[in-house]
């Protein structure tokens, strides 16, 4: 309870700080503020999908269904945060580029990423039996994550994108950024990571309870 309150206070403070305390970055103007939500969302999406792949491999090694709960929760949250990153990016694109959506390589690749993991959920829905579902989903999750570096790092670099360099802005721009922007940005990054860990544990626990409830109500022969 204390930790949750602390997390909420942390994110709220960082967000308010980003809007009121930190000055806008030169050249970005008021759209600087999207940065505090957009980049943490994109970061958490990649983190959640990596988390899911790690738990998929752990499931294949140990065959504990708990890992499958974590893997599925990771994909669900990856899709949620990926969608949030897409929407916040679209808002930013409207403000900066003058159009909500113009198939910039980075816009394209995040949609493809959402499709890849949408297919993961479709696959889970089509398999009978929890052991088999967990196993096949884990087998799919590994090559699915292989596409992530290609989609996030390789393709946008090969095909000209207008999108600012990911993860950390270009060195030149970064040097000129106000330290207050950095403080708020990093605080949001940490806060969103905490938010992810909390939501992930909730989701995984929910999945475990559902699984237990299902086995209790219909014991297998």
């Amino acid at each position: 309870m204390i930790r949750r309150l602390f997390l909420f206070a942390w994110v709220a403070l960082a967000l308010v700080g980003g809007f009121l305390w930190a000055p806008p970055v030169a050249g970005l103007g008021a759209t600087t503020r999207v940065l505090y939500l957009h980049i943490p969302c994109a970061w958490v999406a990649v983190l959640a999908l990596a988390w899911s792949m790690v738990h998929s491999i752990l499931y294949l090694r140990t065959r504990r269904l708990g890992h499958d709960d974590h893997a599925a929760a990771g994909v669900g949250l990856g899709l949620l945060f990926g969608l949030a990153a897409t929407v916040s990016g679209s808002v930013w694109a409207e403000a900066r580029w003058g159009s909500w959506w113009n198939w910039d390589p980075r816009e394209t690749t995040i949609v493809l990423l959402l499709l890849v993991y949408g297919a993961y959920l479709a696959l889970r829905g089509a398999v009978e039996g929890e052991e088999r579902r967990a196993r096949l989903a884990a087998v799919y999750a590994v090559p699915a994550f292989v596409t992530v570096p290609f989609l996030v790092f390789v393709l946008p670099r090969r095909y000209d994108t207008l999108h600012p360099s990911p993860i950390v802005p270009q060195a030149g721009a970064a040097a000129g950024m106000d330290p207050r922007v950095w403080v708020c940005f990093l605080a949001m990054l940490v806060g969103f990571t905490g938010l992810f860990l909390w939501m992930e544990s909730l989701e995984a626990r929910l999945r475990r309870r559902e699984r237990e409830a299902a086995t209790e109500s219909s014991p297998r022969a």
Partner: protein
Amino acid sequence: MRTVWAILRRECRGEWRTRHGLGAALLFALASLVGVSFVVGPLGDRPDLLAALLWIVLLFAALASLAHAFVREVEAGTLTLLRLVASPTAIALGKLLFNLLFLGVLELVTVPVFLVLMGAPAVRWGPFLLVLGLGSLALAATTTLVGAVVAQTRARGALFAAVALPLLIVVLIAGVAGLRAQWEGASVAGEARLLAAYAAVVLGVSLPLFDHVWED
């Protein structure tokens, strides 16, 4: 290695006896090709469209047919026997080679017809075959793994295309860019590297995964 070869021969013999897999794929490819070329006509001056249409025809023909390799085993109930005599890796490699061969035959018929019907400009065969070959390798590597997974689910046919296509978009993008560069006289080295890297990574992660695909 000998097992892989035996599985490939067995696949080919099985396919040759019935021929419905290859026949259906060829018919599908040719029908979509005729439809496309009738609707949009010769596109000799638009290499970008040519490249995209060729890959889409090939990709769809592949998606309509490549699940076959494993679905057939599951439907005939022969997968258990196959697993008794061969290791998962050998089965995977055998099926992969078969899928690759299948794609090769498909392309051997489809690509010339496409080039003629669409009025394509002269092809630089070296870069063209390099991009096509590496793209086919990446396509076969991905569809073999997805086919093995999807064969064990309900609604296999519909699910196969839905699950495989998102994974193949990278191949599609790089393949289209490569063929386009080939027609426009540019270098295809970047796209070839991208396709080769994708194929290598998918192969590298999928071979160990085959140990886990079949268990019950």
